[in-house]
Every structure is written in structure tokens, then in C-alpha cells.
């Protein structure tokens, strides 16, 4: 009888644990002392490490989505709408979500593994006895850095993906870059960009909080480190989709459509 409730119980204790952890972030994160140097270093690390990956994926997404959409648009005789239709779906949905998923894989697992190994090799304890609050030094900086970097990465990937789409459009028809940008910005408005940027902040926050939570509470030695990295990715991927779903609903209610 109790066995059947076991997965449910562990799910709720996980959700509870993560919420308490996030709460602690808000309590401790805004009180001095602030770790500015570490925050800058983390932002650079996190941004720089994922830059290439996000850029290349953005380009491929732009290119592929355009090539894939072309036949059906052609069938309806709406080829000339290709740039505007593709750009809206890229900017609103595809690029932010794909970027977040890549970051969940790269940043989330990185944070989980790094903090996990720091934990099992007592480095976090060593920090604490060295007059440092490890929660501030390690967690707060990583969460803020990821939350700030993700929208930047998304904007970058948006831009690159639109270049990719331009090349995709040019494979089937000839269109000048000027005309292409005109067509895009005729359709693409502030209300497409803003919600996608806002949700990127939440993606970043979710990914970092989960990676940090998994790493900070790693148990069972080196074996636990692998598990922390792995479950960071699994849980944060799931959370990205949940946030995306909520964001779509909220944008709908607020008429950001």
C-alpha cells in the first residue's frame, strides 16, 4: 500500500525541496555581502561556454525550419509570407525553447556536476570554514548569472537563426536582405519578442536552481555526482517545458498574441 505512494511522495518532497531552496535564494541573495567578482566570473563562464553551441544550433534551426516550411507554403501559394511566418515561430517559440534545452543540458549538468563534486570532496565545507557563505558564493552567483545570461543567449540565437532563415529562403527564391528584413519586421512585433525574453529569464532561473539544488545536496560520493548531473538535466528539461506551457497561457491571457 505504502509502496504505491512512494514515487508520488518522492516527487512532492523533491518539489518541496526545490521550492525551499529557491526561497533561500531570495532570502540570502539580496543581503550583503555581495559576491560581485564571482558573479562576473560565473556570467562570463556560463555565457562563453554555451555561446558557440547556441549560435550554431540557432543557425541550423533557422535554416531547417525555413526549408521544411517552404513546400507547404508553396502548396498554398503563400511563399512570399515565408520570412514573416518563419521568423515569428522562431522568435516566439522555437529559439527560446531550444536554447533553454541546450542550456539545461550544458549549464544545468555543469552546475550539478561541479557543485556535486565540490560537495563530496568537502570543498563546500572548506569554504564555509574559510569565512565564506557557500550558499552566497556558489549558489546565488550561479543562479543570477544563468538568469541573466539566458535571455542574452536567446537574443543572440534569435539573430543568428534569422540569418539562417534568410539563407533558407534564398535557397528556393531570390530575395534581397533588405526586402527580407522588411518583411520580417512588418510581421514581427514587440509583443512577439517581449514574452519570449521574459520567459527566458524564467528558463535560466529554473535551470540554475535545479542544477544547484542537485549539486548542493549530492550524497553518496562520486557515484552521487554523476546522478546529480544527470538528474539536473532531466528535471530542468521538464521544468523548461512547464515554464513554456505556463508562459503561453499567461501571454494568451494578457493578449500578447
Amino acid at each position: 500500500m505504502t509502496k504505491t505512494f512512494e514515487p508520488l511522495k518522492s516527487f512532492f518532497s523533491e518539489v518541496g525541496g526545490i521550492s525551499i531552496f529557491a526561497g533561500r535564494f531570495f532570502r540570502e541573495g539580496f543581503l550583503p555581502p555581495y559576491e560581485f567578482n564571482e558573479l562576473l566570473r560565473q556570467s562570463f563562464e556560463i555565457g562563453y561556454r554555451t555561446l558557440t553551441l547556441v549560435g550554431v544550433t540557432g543557425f541550423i534551426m533557422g535554416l531547417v525550419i525555413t526549408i521544411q516550411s517552404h513546400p507547404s507554403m508553396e502548396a498554398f501559394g503563400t511563399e512570399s509570407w515565408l520570412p514573416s511566418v518563419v521568423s515569428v515561430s522562431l522568435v516566439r517559440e522555437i529559439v527560446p525553447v531550444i536554447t533553454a534545452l541546450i542550456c539545461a543540458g550544458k549549464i544545468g549538468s555543469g552546475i550539478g556536476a561541479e557543485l556535486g563534486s565540490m560537495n563530496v570532496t568537502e570543498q563546500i565545507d572548506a569554504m564555509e570554514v574559510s569565512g565564506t557563505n557557500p550558499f552566497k558564493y556558489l549558489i546565488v552567483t550561479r543562479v543570477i548569472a544563468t538568469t541573466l545570461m539566458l535571455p542574452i543567449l536567446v537574443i543572440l540565437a534569435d539573430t543568428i537563426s534569422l540569418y539562417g532563415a534568410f539563407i533558407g529562403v534564398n535557397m528556393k527564391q531570390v530575395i534581397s536582405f533588405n526586402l527580407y528584413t522588411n518583411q520580417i519586421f512588418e510581421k514581427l512585433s514587440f509583443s512577439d519578442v517581449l514574452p519570449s525574453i521574459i520567459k527566458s529569464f524564467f528558463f535560466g532561473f529554473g535551470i540554475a536552481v535545479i542544477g544547484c539544488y542537485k549539486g548542493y545536496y549530492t550524497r553518496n560520493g562520486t557515484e552521487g555526482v554523476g546522478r546529480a548531473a544527470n538528474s539536473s538535466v532531466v528535471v530542468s528539461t521538464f521544468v523548461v517545458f512547464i515554464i513554456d506551457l505556463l508562459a503561453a497561457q499567461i501571454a494568451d491571457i494578457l493578449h500578447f498574441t
Partner: protein
Amino acid sequence: MNTTETREPVVIIQNLKKSFGDNHVLNDFNLNVYKGENVVVLGRSGTGKSVLIKCLVRLLDADEGEMKVFGMSITDLKHKELDDIRAKIGFLFQSSALYDSMTVRENLEFPLRRHKHKISKQEVDALIKTALENVALAGTEAMMPAELSGGMKKRIGIARMLILNPEVMLYDEPTTGLDPITGREINHLMLEVQRKFNTSSIIISHDMNCVRRTANRVVVLINGKCYAEGTYDELKNSNDKNIKQFFD
């Protein structure tokens, strides 16, 4: 030994209790450590030796009991005071706990910058140089922990704890996992630290070579209690089978 009894103890642990759920790790543990003395805590794996010294610096919160360091009760210190006390306690972790992402130099710099906020670059340089010379590893500033051998890591760990000139040293299994020769070097280093800086130490070990060479006094931890206490020779000649097993 009588001379130590008249001195004021630097560390006092009284009726320390610590459990994790049903696992009663420490149960009324008592220990005094006097100025300039090396006390070795001997105990089997998993008896709570690491837990004991972690309670002493409040990395773990004790369930019950009184702990005093330099006459201050550790259990009810505020954050700032706790940091000040921690700066006077050196802690060598069982796994050395060097920061993987930092060079040796940055590892040594970390506690300095954290505990002493106003310190010039020249002072830092000088302190790091002396600390590395003390452990015979001058010139390794730029190396990463991953490039160091186990023995070197232990020594950098000791350099990192020495850099703040602590008065109490806590060594968690300083020689475990090292070859006998490197182990002997670490023993030598610990004795030199004691002699040079007149520090008091709690050394956790089950390496009998280390115990024989470094201990002024040995405490045997069994079932969460201080089971027996004495010099190395006193315990070695004991007839109690629980004590004997360590010396066979």
C-alpha cells in the same frame, strides 16, 4: 603528563551528542586539549571521528553538549564571531578539499582574502611564499590541484590551513592513502608545525605510525564515547581487547 593538567585547556568538549536519525554517532563524548599538545583520536571507520571535528567548527550542529574553544562556547556564537573563531582553527579535510577550479596560489589566497579583508598584494605574496616553503612545495603556485599527487595535495592543504596562523589544528586522517615514506614526511611536518607555532592539534588517524610519531596523548573513540585515554605506550601495553585491536 601532570604538567598539562594544570594548564588551561584550549579546546573543551563535554557530553557531546550527535545523531543522524537512529544512527547515534556521538554519545556523551568528552575531550580536553591543552596548549601545545597533539591529541590523536583513534577509532574505526564510521565511528564519527570526522563528525566530531566537524561539530567543533559548526560544520555540523551538535544535538547536545558543550564545546568551548579559547574559552568561547562554540554552540551559541553569532555568525561574525563564529567566523573569527574559525579563522583561528585550521582544518585539514580528509579529502584535502583543495578547490579544483583554482590554482594552488588561489587556493592559498582564498582564506586570506576572506578572513582579512584589508590585505595588500605584497603581504599576500609574502604569506603564500612562506606557507609554501613551510610545506616544502615552493614554486607550485601556478599548478592546478588535479596536477598534484595525493601527498602534495595534503601538504598544500596544510599550507592553506597554516596561512592564517591558526592556534588549533584539526587534521582529519592526514596520512591515510599515502605511502609510508610520504606519510612520514607529513608526520614530520605536523610535528614541525606544533614545535614552530606551539599549536594544539586534534589528529584523527588509524595509521599507527602516524599515531606513534605525533601523539602526545591518544584517545580511543568507541561507540560514540571516549573509551580510553593515555600515551601511545600506555595504550599499546593495555590488556583490553578493544584497545589491543588497533595495535595488532
